[in-house]
């Protein structure tokens, strides 16, 4: 009953994903490099009278070690806590007064300062972002406060079944590579980081050539470029920091059993996978989607719909500058854990053995590209993606090239990448002690 109908929709599918790309996303941003080295990306989008901006800085947990793990995220939090002319409260009030907000966080390959505003306030928004990024005062009391919040958040992750299982599987699959540590860092390292360390870290990394500012909204690109040149003129030049030498990622390919009180048992299975710039990237994305993307992927249909063994199940393959990770997840009643895990491993085995059928391949590609297009509709997401592609060094036309690469993926490609990357699972299970 199923296959013929799918073939019917397949004709539409190839064009459908394109059809989702909105006017704003269809064209690339204007790109300019300031004399200081800061990269500026501006998108004019008149659809709504709003504006969003993302300032990416090439610093994150990738540049951290066990000794300062968590410093990138701590710095981001404290940036918002004072400049020579604004207190923490004044920064918050200023951002809210523009009809938006300002926030910051660190990731593995970058740190981000993001802001939104009503479009008429775009100039003030740029000024506020520059003030916070370039002139933070990093007050001691605020460092202590944010450190405590991060320590609490780390403990909280230890107490919740899914985050704990996730952190554990990442540490097992990445080994000593910094991607194996949580962005929140290590408690011992956090306790040690003081104002001097944060200040030095800021000076090392917050340099113009390491910065990418992406702006999207109902603004004039020419005016934004002039204003950014003026407001960010104080950003220090020079790369500042050589690329770190990183320990190799070496997946343990073993099983870790965590015993914790929980209503659901969690099963996570992970594999090392290629970085975003790798030729296999698109095929592994499609593979992940065929297995665990959406509600018609294999895990959802087999483990949840046919067997009723889970509510949440799926997989992901996040885009990374360095080694990627492909993981599959499910949560189930403790009594069903063994059966559910066997079902999941069975699906991983099957996709390495047999080619996917044409309808599945079509669905996976359409879903993947459709989601990609749906995720690039708001100004905040458009700015984020522009800065992200720049940080990954994949080029302004990445969205187009990626779309074509996904469309070209064949069932044979999937079989090949499944056999290449899904050979040795690293498994983490979490649940209450066996009765």
């Amino acid at each position, binding site marked *: 009953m199923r296959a013929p109908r799918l073939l019917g929709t397949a004709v539409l599918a190839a064009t459908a994903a394109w059809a989702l790309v909105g006017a704003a996303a269809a064209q690339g941003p204007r790109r300019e490099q300031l004399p200081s080295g800061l990269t500026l990306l501006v998108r004019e989008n*008149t659809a709504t009278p709003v504006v969003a901006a993302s300032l990416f800085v090439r610093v994150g947990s990738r540049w951290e070690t066990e000794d300062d793990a968590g410093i990138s995220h701590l710095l981001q939090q404290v940036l918002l806590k004072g400049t020579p002319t604004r207190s923490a409260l004044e920064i918050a009030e200023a951002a809210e007064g523009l009809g938006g907000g300002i926030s910051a966080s660190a990731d593995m390959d970058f740190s981000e300062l993001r802001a939104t505003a009503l479009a008429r306030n775009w100039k003030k928004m740029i000024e506020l972002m520059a003030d916070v990024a370039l002139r933070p005062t990093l007050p001691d009391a605020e460092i202590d406060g944010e450190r405590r919040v991060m320590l609490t958040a780390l403990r909280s992750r230890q107490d919740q079944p899914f985050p704990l299982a996730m952190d554990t599987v990442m540490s097992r699959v990445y080994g000593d590579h910094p991607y194996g540590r949580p962005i929140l860092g290590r408690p011992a390292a956090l306790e040690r980081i003081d104002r001097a360390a944060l200040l030095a870290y800021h000076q090392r990394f917050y340099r113009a050539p390491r910065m990418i500012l992406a702006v999207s909204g109902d603004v004039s690109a020419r005016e934004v470029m002039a204003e950014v040149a003026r407001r960010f003129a104080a950003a220090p030049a020079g790369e500042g920091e050589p690329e770190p030498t990183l320990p190799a990622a070496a997946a343990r390919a073993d099983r870790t059993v965590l015993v914790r009180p929980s209503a659901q048992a969690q099963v996570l299975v992970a594999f090392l996978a290629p970085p975003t710039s790798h030729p296999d990237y698109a095929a592994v994305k499609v593979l992940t989607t065929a297995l665990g993307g959406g509600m018609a992927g294999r895990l959802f249909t087999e483990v949840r719909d046919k067997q009723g063994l889970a509510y*949440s199940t799926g997989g992901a393959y996040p885009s990374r500058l360095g080694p990627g990770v492909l993981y599959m997840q499910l949560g189930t009643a403790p009594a069903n854990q063994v059966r559910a895990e066997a079902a999941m491993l069975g699906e991983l085995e099957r996709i390495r053995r047999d080619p996917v059928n044409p309808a599945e391949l079509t669905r996976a590609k359409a879903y993947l590209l*459709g989601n990609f297009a749906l995720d690039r509709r708001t100004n905040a997401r458009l700015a984020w993606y522009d800065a992200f592609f720049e940080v990954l060094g994949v080029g302004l036309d990445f969205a187009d090239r990626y779309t074509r690469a996904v469309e070209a993926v064949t069932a044979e490609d999937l079989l090949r990448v499944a056999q290449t990357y899904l050979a040795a699972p690293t498994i983490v299970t979490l649940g209450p002690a066996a009765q």
Partner: protein
Amino acid sequence: MTPTPSRRRSVCALAIVLLTTAGCATRTASSAPSHGLPAPIREVLPNGMRLIIQEHRAASTVAIHLWTGVGGRDESVGERGFSHFAEHMMFKGTATRPRGFVETEVESVGGRTNAGTSNDYTFYYLLLPAARALPGIALIADMVLNSVFDPTELTREREVVFEEVRLNEDNPRSSLGRQLYNLLYQEHPYGRPVLGDAADLRAATQETLRGYYTRYYVPNNMTLVVVGPVDPAAVRAAALEAFGARPAVPYTRPPLPAPGRFDGVRDRAVERPERQTQLGLAWLGPPLGHSDMAAVDVLGHILGGPRSSRLNQALRERARLVSSISGWYGALQGAGTIGVTAQLEGRDAGAVEQAILAEIERVRSDGVTPDELARAITASEAEREFSRETVEGLALAYGRAETTWNLEEERAYVDRVRKVTRAEVQAAARRYLTASYARLTFVPRARTP
């Protein structure tokens, strides 16, 4: 607390309950046309079904929402959880389409689908390329009109619902929200968990569940909302073809009783495996459509909304008593809730509660500042503009308003917020944030070595 609905089907029950309780009540569309958006078209089909069409030419996607006026509050003894269970079963096959048809058809053209159940309503959505709008209307109609409730599928899906219950139990924040409603509303329908009662769900059969569904999925209890770059005449024709043949059934939703008033503090402490303490306080507030709604909305924003809010500044930034705190106003059809939830590292929830009450007392006695009011109004205006960046933002606001409130009032809501005065905010604090409230604490369980 700003939870977003999960992309996965129906984290719904709770996510949607939280959607309506978190942040501001309903800030979205306004009567003033902005950037060329025409007013939505609202009409009632001959069988009583309502249709709302919003042309949105700048969009490349279409949002198709089907809203039904059925939720946890409509369930009698023996059918607790049926609204949500029925929602799951809609994805399990119709007379002419097999299990999984919605997901497969939608995802195969690059779209998304999901559903949600709350106390007041159940809704289903498709997000599709604009060219797929008309087949999408036929698809969603087949889904909600012709589901078969196959007994084998029902048995299997029941286990999925139980997994959803367990998932929510393991998450302290979602558990806190649900149990806080239970503590505040108790025997009132809003006090019942949308996910239902395990015994009732186990006893559900094809006959009983379908009987429940048949009672409530009637034309005058449903609204179709279509937002996107669509031709209204074509949408109307497709809606008539898909839904028009369904005969009218006289159905009137019974009015809700008023929530029980109480004096003093309704207190509950629950031991949990986490090491953090969670504190939730909740007061009874005005329902959707009440004349105090906008003032309470502004009050919630100033007290506990963004980073600059009173509670965040006093408890997180200055006293460092909590790692996070938020205040919110959730307006439902029959009642409103004003809540404060906080997470703290130590066990001293008492000190946190005293600090929260002190901030509330400050608003009650001294009111709010002109700057605070101005920022709250700006936030409301901005939220409306940002919600128009996607078609689903408007569809959600329209569907919810049509089902539990009023479309025109929803569209004029930002204008109401603009007119709120400082005196009204202070009066609202005095009227609602009284000494009668619910207090729920999640305390760390003593660990055995």
